[in-house]
């Protein structure tokens, strides 16, 4: 018979345990999801069609605007604007993959785990719950990045988009900080969804089109500031979703801040990056507290294992 295991609490042990938990929870998303080869069609090629429809709208507008314009400079301006809008759509469509992953595979995940009976196993395991959420986030980011990059590259090639990237380091920084902030928000939602139960699914569904609209996934979000008070109110509300500022900054960095006459940006890239860093930290901290509080609440009310509620 083996000796009884000593309950260890030293830092090195806890660090290793939680790192293992992160890797263990990320594993099925990194390996398991990609083991099913049909994802290439369903999650990389099919979403491109949705993006294509928005691209064709701008191209249709562009073609109509070109009718009757004979001035070469005006024609060039219309073509340049159409290219920038098409690029905005492809970038936005790529970020849609991350937002959907945050909603459906982060925010809804603990609720989903409760439904299929895994949550109680997680709660009994000795690691920190944040390591579990962290593993889900790391795996989700990797899984979605593979899909998003496929969509971005295909979209860029198919629609012949020309980018003007002048600062790739800042672009990468904005992208990763946006992802951390987005997944931090997802981790916070994951806890809240445990409390909301069955409403959670509908809340996720409700946070698709309205967020695509308020965060400007398919148009420069600065356009909302041009349509009066209601537009400004919606745009300000939309900036609470990190994708809004992240996309605005990434569009400035890939299209040049003079695109659209420089009139459709919210803030400079530096300010947007700073706000995103703050958001990332705040959402991660809030996720930690929300998780601890709601775990306690769920245990107290006996809802931790109750399904379909």
């Amino acid at each position, binding site marked *: 018979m083996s000796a009884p295991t000593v309950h260890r609490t030293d830092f090195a042990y806890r660090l290793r345990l939680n790192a293992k938990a992160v890797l263990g929870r990320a594993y099925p998303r990194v390996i*398991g*999801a990609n083991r*099913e080869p*049909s*994802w290439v*069609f*369903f*999650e990389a*090629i*099919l*979403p*491109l*069609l*949705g*993006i*294509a*429809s*928005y691209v*064709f*709208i*701008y*191209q*249709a*507008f*562009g*073609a*109509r*605007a070109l009718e009757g314009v004979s001035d070469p400079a005006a024609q060039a*301006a*219309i073509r340049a*604007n159409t290219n920038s*809008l098409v690029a905005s759509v492809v970038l936005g469509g790529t970020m849609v993959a991350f937002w*959907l992953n945050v909603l*459906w595979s982060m925010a809804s995940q603990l609720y*989903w785990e409760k*439904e*299929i009976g895994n949550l109680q196993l997680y709660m009994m395991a000795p690691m920190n719950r944040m390591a579990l959420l962290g593993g889900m986030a790391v795996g989700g980011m990797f899984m979605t990045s593979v899909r998003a990059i496929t969509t971005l590259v295909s979209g860029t090639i198919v629609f012949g988009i020309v980018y003007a990237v002048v600062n790739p380091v800042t672009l990468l920084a904005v992208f990763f900080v946006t992802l951390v902030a987005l997944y931090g928000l997802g981790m916070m939602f994951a806890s809240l969804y445990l409390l909301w139960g*069955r409403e959670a*699914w*509908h809340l996720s*569904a*409700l946070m*698709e*089109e*309205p967020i*695509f*609209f*308020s965060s*400007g996934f398919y*148009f*420069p979000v600065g*356009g*909302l500031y*041009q*349509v009066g008070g209601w537009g400004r109110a919606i745009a300000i509300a939309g900036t609470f979703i990190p994708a809004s500022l992240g996309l605005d900054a990434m569009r400035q960095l890939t299209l040049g801040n003079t695109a*659209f*006459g420089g*009139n*459709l940006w919210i803030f400079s890239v530096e300010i947007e990056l700073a706000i995103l860093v703050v958001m990332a930290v705040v959402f991660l901290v809030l996720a930690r507290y929300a998780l601890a509080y709601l775990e306690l609440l769920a245990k107290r009310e006996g809802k931790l294992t109750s399904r*379909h509620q």
Partner: protein
Amino acid sequence: MNTFWRTFKTAAWLGWEMDSNWTEPWLFALYSIVKPVAGAFILVLMYVVFAIIGGGPDQEAFDYMYIGNAFFIFVASTLFGTFQVIQSDREWYQTIRYVYISPISYYVYILGRSASKIAVSTFAVVITIAFGAMFLGVHLEMTLERIPLFVAGLILGLSVLLAIGICLGGISFLTAKHTHGLAEGIPGLFYVFCGVLFPLSILPDWGQAIGKGIPLTYWFDLTRRLLTPTPTIQTTLNAFSDGFILLLLFLSTLGFFGLSIVIFKSGEYLARKAGKIDMTTSY
């Protein structure tokens, strides 16, 4: 026939309860409106942004896009309402084995489950069009004599959608948890190729050929002709009469209905053979 009708009614009731009983009726009504209106507003802002940066206003293009988008609500929700039944029963509720072994037609059960989605989307389509007409200047020209043609087109369009949804459902017997990929992708296919938001003439020749092979293209064209004529827009279908389009829709409905039975039964057979009827692919 009696069993089919009873299955349909019970499944429709079940679908309605699953869709709506999670909250108060007023909140459900609000929820049902917010999503499609926000979807319409994405297009409104795309149009506004293009106009702001120098494209100028183009009301006819806007009407074309807005009405197409409003009726596309039927496409997204009817398709999702049908093909997600198998995956939600199988992966989420894990009830598929109990429903499947009960003495009913699973095909009819899926049709029933999707009925509530169609009812809710009808409400959303009406709200979206009314909003566009009242606040966004969308020009409507519906007359009394056009109503029978419009209703006939609507019924045939929805029937084709249901049949396509069942075809996808048959395929989803065999696939992993791809509901969201399908929900985004398949409507995206129709969004691009059916002249929903922009005329087919924008597409390359091969794209136009695909569009002309999909019955929904004709349904959208007929609906727009009857609701908001846009004579300066070259749809590439201008040569077809309304009656001819209706006939095409009727024949397509029959064809897709037959195809849906073949694909559904094949998917079901192969899934049973591979032991996949009640698989879960949770990751």
